[in-house]
């Protein structure tokens, strides 16, 4: 009899109410579809089941899975079962089982242990936020005597006053601008003071991202910009702008009253800007707050799966007795002394190198609970030699005594892989299987055994059935779980899953473990090559290359395409005809004065074209030139005709003719010197 464990049993009915949370939908939704392996628990829960009121109805509501192993969709969507069965290594049904997808919240409730770098970053951000808020508060104080000292009241020369105005345009710090405004006002230079105060407001709005200052923007531009996003601020600024512009561009005299009015409006704008910033920071900060904030003992974050096969209820049951319960992220090769109980779920799979430190930790007083994990390690002295048995089996140790002691009833469903009954001592309490109610019979099967190692102990369960949410709904299983994990020395309880030991201690480890090292190395090589190829300039900001002007031929082509799109071949024909006739005049000087007939004859003689074709072409060209000219000189009746094909044909023929004339050179008669 394990007196220690028995004493734990006297802790009382802890952990019995963990399933009241409606996140455990299998306990609160009568239509919740259960998998076949989950239905094994139905007989054990009884009807009614006070801990899980709707489980009996869910058990009676038999839903046949479809041919693809999914449940029919009349109960819920057929989305992938995101949250239900993500417990690594558990006997979970496959994804997409037809159960309604869990809220993403469960996804977010991953173990929240942050790396030291992340913690440092978070703290840094928090401090920066505080400093920013404090700075804003300090900046907005009206009459803080500790403000920058006011300049002595010296009557400035006009040049100095003009210089102050120029400085207002250059100074960008809001606090200094306000101080300058007050100093100028104290000196009686209210025009400069008003300008400084207004500049402070604009700088603040610019800094807060509400406007964007630019030398080409007017006050009206800023007001219109503000009106779109911040109408309240725009209203305030409008009043200020009226006063400021009245002084700057109007005949309003800059007085103390006017300065006070401007400063008042500016301070309202600055205050609103700060309030918006604080609100923004608060909103950003809210998600970081927890309901345990301010308490001495931080509330352990218990996330995890709330499906029947999940383990969240297990942790919550343990938490009723042991507040320090959490998932373990750190590797198992170095277990901290403040860890009292370590529960290893299937899939957590300690490496061979891990067992030595684990056993050492057990010998120093730790309690190791193997939930179905059957590590093959000689140091464990808990399992049979795997050579002689198909799989490691429990062979020695005490039988963990939870059953029916002090009126508790613990149940787990039967399964195929029973542990062999060994070394049962009469009167020894055994966590029994449901089918082996009478453990005094020889057919009794043992579900869990334990061994002492040094000052600690190792408890091994046949499987992880006992470590599921649905197990916590049966009889006294939940408080037995709480009792088993509890440590009087207030040491913590840690649950190991497949995520245990998967964290990286440095970014390099993370890259290595993600098998990204080759990719990163290739990227670095690519950058190095780029550096060699383009020089260091590729990483620097450079002015965009000046856009070169287009060549004349490009303009001509663009113009031509415009004409083509506009179906304005007639215009092109007119222009070309005028040019071609001019060329003909140069090649055949004086011929056109003698008439088209004479010109055509001369051309035909030189080019050997038929004279009739030449004269037709010349008539068309001459007609076209008479149609051309500025629009204002033409009547609507003379609008160009739109026979595109004819114009194109004429243009090409004229071009050929002009080219032939060009090739033959000028007329000898034309070049003959006058006598």
């Amino acid at each position, binding site marked *: 009899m394990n007196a220690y464990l028995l004493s734990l049993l006297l802790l009382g009915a802890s952990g019995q109410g963990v399933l009241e949370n409606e996140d455990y939908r299998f306990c609160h939704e009568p239509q919740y579809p259960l998998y076949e392996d989950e239905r094994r628990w139905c007989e054990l829960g009884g009807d009614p089941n006070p801990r899980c009121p709707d489980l009996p109805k869910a058990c009676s509501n038999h839903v046949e899975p479809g041919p693809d192993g999914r449940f029919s969709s009349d109960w819920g969507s057929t989305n992938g079962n995101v949250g239900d069965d993500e417990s690594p290594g558990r006997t979970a049904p496959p994804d997409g089982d037809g159960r309604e997808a869990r809220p993403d919240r469960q996804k977010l409730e991953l173990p929240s242990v942050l790396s030291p770098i992340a913690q440092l970053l978070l703290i840094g951000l928090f401090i920066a936020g505080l400093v920013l808020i404090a700075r804003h508060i300090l900046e907005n104080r009206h009459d803080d005597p500790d403000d920058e000292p006011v300049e002595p009241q010296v009557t400035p020369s006009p040049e100095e006053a003009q210089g102050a*105005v120029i400085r*207002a*345009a250059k100074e960008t710090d809001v606090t200094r601008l306000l101080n300058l405004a007050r100093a100028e006002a104290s000196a009686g230079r209210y025009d400069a003071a008003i*300008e400084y105060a*207004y*500049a402070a407001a*604009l*700088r603040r709005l610019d800094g807060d991202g509400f406007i964007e*200052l*630019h*030398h*080409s*923007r*007017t*006050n*009206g*531009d800023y007001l219109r910009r503000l009106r779109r996003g911040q109408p309240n601020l725009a209203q305030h600024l409008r009043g200020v702008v009226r006063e400021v*512009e*009245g002084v*700057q*561009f*109007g*005949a309003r005299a800059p007085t103390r009253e006017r300065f006070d009015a401007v400063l008042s409006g500016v301070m309202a704008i600055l205050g609103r800007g700060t309030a918006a910033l604080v609100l923004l920071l608060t909103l950003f900060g809210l998600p970081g707050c927890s309901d345990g904030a301010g308490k001495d003992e931080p509330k352990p974050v218990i996330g995890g799966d709330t499906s029947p096969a999940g383990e969240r209820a297990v942790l919550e049951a343990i938490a009723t007795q042991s507040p320090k319960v959490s998932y373990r992220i750190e590797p198992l090769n170095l277990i901290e002394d403040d860890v009292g109980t370590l529960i290893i779920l299937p899939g957590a799979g300690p490496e061979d190198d891990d067992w030595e430190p684990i056993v050492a930790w057990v010998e120093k007083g730790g309690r190791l609970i193997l939930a179905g994990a059957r590590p093959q390690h000689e140091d464990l002295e808990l399992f049979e030699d795997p050579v002689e048995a198909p799989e490691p089996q429990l062979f020695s140790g005490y039988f963990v005594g939870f059953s029916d002691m002090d009126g508790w009833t613990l149940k787990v469903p039967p399964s195929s892989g029973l542990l062999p009954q060994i070394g049962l001592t009469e009167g020894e309490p055994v966590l029994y299987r449901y089918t082996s109610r009478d453990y005094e019979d020889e057919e009794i099967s043992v579900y869990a055994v334990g061994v002492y190692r040094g000052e600690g102990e190792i408890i091994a369960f046949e499987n992880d059935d006992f470590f599921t949410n649905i197990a916590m709904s049966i009889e006294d299983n939940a408080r037995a779980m709480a009792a088993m994990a509890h440590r009087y020395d207030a040491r913590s309880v840690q649950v190991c899953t497949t995520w245990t030991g998967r964290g990286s201690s440095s970014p390099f480890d993370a890259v290595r473990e993600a098998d990204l090292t080759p990719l990163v190395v290739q990227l670095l090589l690519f950058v190095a090559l780029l550096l060699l190829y383009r020089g260091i300039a590729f990483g620097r900001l450079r002015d965009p290359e000046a856009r070169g*002007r*287009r060549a004349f031929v490009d*303009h001509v082509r*663009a*113009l031509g395409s*415009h004409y083509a799109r506009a179906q304005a071949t007639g215009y092109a024909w007119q222009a070309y005809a005028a040019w071609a006739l001019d060329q003909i005049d140069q090649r055949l000087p004086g011929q056109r004065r003698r008439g088209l007939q004479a010109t055509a004859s001369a051309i035909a003689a030189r080019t050997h074209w038929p004279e009739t074709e030449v004269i037709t072409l010349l008539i068309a060209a001459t007609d076209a030139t008479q149609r051309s000219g500025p*629009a*204002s000189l033409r*009547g*609507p009746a003379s*609008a160009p005709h739109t026979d595109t094909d004819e114009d194109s044909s004429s243009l090409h023929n004229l071009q050929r003719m002009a080219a032939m004339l060009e090739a033959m050179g000028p007329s000898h008669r034309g070049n003959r010197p006058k006598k």
Partner: protein
Amino acid sequence: MAETSKAVLGQEETIEAVLIALLANGHVLIEGVPGLGKTLLARTLSRVLGLEHKRIQFTPDLMPSDVSGGNVYHQKEDRFVFIPGPVFTNLLLADEINRAPAKTQSALLEAMQDRSVSTDGVTRPLPEPYVVIATQNPVESQGTYPLPEAQLDRFLAKVHVGHPTSEVEQQLLRGYASGFDASDLDSAGVSVQSSAEEIRAMKGALSTVQVGDELIHYITQIVAQSRTHRAVYLGASPRGAISLLTAGRARAASQGRTFVVPDDIKALAPSVLRHRLILHPDAEIEGVTADDVIGEILMQTQVPRTAA
């Protein structure tokens, strides 16, 4: 402007331009396709301002005397009697001004400039106030007589009117569905808000609106840059600078101010200058518009007394 918006929706820029032109002794050229409510705008403005209005549809056969009027022999009195043309009104809508020959256009433009009509040696002044809203269609070019640049310069502002937004169009259709009749402004509740005398008084007070040296410098900077911009063949004339100044004053007055601010100049620069710039052909081929040039100039010009 609010009263005008009862009948004319989504044309705030045009309405403002007309009002400014009215105060600044200028005229407005509206470029837009037909059916955008230009006639309605003129009628509504004349109703709101308490002015007389007339409309001329410009056609190729329109004669100068059809615009300005002319002497007609009166048989009974045995003498020539002057019959005033439609130009004798307060608010004249010259629809599709580019459809009439240059001679007829000149007759109107001279009347616009001189604010008087001379026939047979007799000069007759036009009513005061007097504003011309001329329109032209940017799409159709055949059978038109484009206004020469020198005459375009006589318009104080040129406004582009585009199609209304979907929301405005829905609002417009709802109005018509509920019984709005464009020919009956009374049904829209448009009432007289002013009178010719009041407008004359306002125009008289325009000279008291202050313009600081910084703003004069700002205007000259803008106009000077319009002459040296690489895409501009011919920049804004001194008349353009004067128009900008006058329009700025009118805008300040219309907003209840006794002084001009840079925002007045900047807001009005596109409409006052866009028709005064002639772009290089290569810039036009590249798709550069006068508005692009003015936007670039305004972006490069430092606003006086800016905090930036």
